[in-house]
């Protein structure tokens, strides 16, 4: 998957990509409006091909389908309302405001400008990402699942500690941080991920460390509804309840 990724729209709309390529291309679709528009048109075109194959459905089918939908609950519309972080990560009560949180404020303030930069950087990193994803895929089949969900979004982290991407599926309420050339945390320390909310709270989102070859994957669950950024800090072993240092990586997500 290199420079000609845009030509895969046709094969994608015809369902002619294998499962792996399909998942990768869907990541690209999440960030490429031109491809998304073309895919929408092609799927509409393919629907015409489908209509031409019209054939009466078997007689008894309707009764079975109607009986089954009677037993089947409908899905809730997209955009889940409740914020739910993974169970072990207790969020602070609304009335507890940490005294100093310089980097969260920095993160929240120029959101629009920083986001534009993050998105611009992303198109460059997508092809690298697919290579990197392929490497970690066998270890984390879950990443592929997230990457292949229809609403997957990806964000590139900015920071000094290496390169990392966030892959997130709002409907699944889960995602991964996938890093490369990120050195292991200093002795006695770990990396901790934080969900930063619009009102400036930092919600712990789990601890991880990088392998000696510089790769790291970290699974997170929760609702991104109120989250505007995700940060990674270096914390003492065992983690902290609130960040004790500036982030080594951060990305805007809203």
């Amino acid at each position, binding site marked *: 998957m290199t420079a000609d990724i845009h030509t895969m729209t046709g094969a994608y709309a015809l369902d002619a990509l294998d499962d792996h390529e399909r998942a990768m291309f869907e990541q690209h679709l999440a960030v490429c409006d031109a491809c998304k528009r073309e895919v929408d048109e092609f*799927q509409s*075109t393919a629907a015409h*091909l489908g209509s031409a*194959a*019209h054939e009466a459905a078997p007689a008894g089918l309707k009764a079975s*389908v*109607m009986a089954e939908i009677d037993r089947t609950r*409908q899905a809730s*519309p997209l955009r889940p309302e409740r914020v739910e972080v993974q169970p072990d990560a207790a969020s602070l009560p609304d009335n507890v405001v940490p005294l100093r949180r310089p980097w969260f404020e920095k993160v929240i303030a120029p959101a629009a400008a920083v986001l534009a930069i993050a998105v611009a950087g992303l198109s460059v990193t997508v092809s690298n990402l697919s290579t990197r994803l392929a490497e970690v895929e066998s270890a984390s089949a879950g990443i592929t699942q997230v990457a292949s969900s229809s609403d997957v979004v990806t964000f590139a982290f900015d920071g000094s500690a290496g390169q990392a991407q966030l892959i997130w599926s709002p409907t699944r309420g889960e995602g991964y941080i996938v890093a490369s050339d990120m050195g292991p945390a200093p002795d006695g320390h770990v990396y901790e991920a934080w969900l930063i909310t619009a009102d400036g709270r930092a919600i712990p989102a789990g601890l991880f460390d990088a392998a000696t070859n510089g790769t790291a994957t970290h699974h997170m669950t929760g609702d991104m509804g109120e989250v505007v950024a995700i940060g990674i800090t270096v914390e003492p072993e065992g983690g902290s309840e609130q960040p004790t240092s500036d982030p080594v990586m951060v990305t805007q997500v809203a």
Partner: protein
Amino acid sequence: MLRTARGDQAAFSDLYDEISGTVFGVIRRVLRDPSHSEEVTQEVLVEVWQQAPRFDPERGSAKTWILTMAHRRAIDRVRSVQASRDRDEFVGHRDRSREFDEVADRVETNLEHEQVRRSLEALTDLQREAVELAYYGGYTYREVAELLDTPLGTVKTRMRDGLIRLRDALGVTA
């Protein structure tokens, strides 16, 4: 569709009458086997019911949404069946060059059928074969490249070029 999305079973019953033949037709084209096709058709229609609240009209029509889902599920089934079956045997019994015409006598010929037939005829042979083998035959573009003895990149671009011409010929907007 909007009523279906709000849990209205009578509305879904109307939607069923409108769309089930096309859903079954698409799936039957890809799967061939009637009982598999019926099973997948049922799964898809129940999924339509289940996912209706998430249908996004801005991405295209309800029909496109449903047929995209139907084709995808049929392809998924083909692949899982093939995984446990000899691919060559599966491929061997098919007429590879004329996927669209093959069941023309079985499907109900209608205006749309005629229009699609004419639009397909207007493509180059390679564009038409690539599109038909993928959509009606259920082959991946790698398999299409092998069947047509054509480089991968060429097949990929012919699929796209073919769809662009079909899109324009059929007056599709999105």
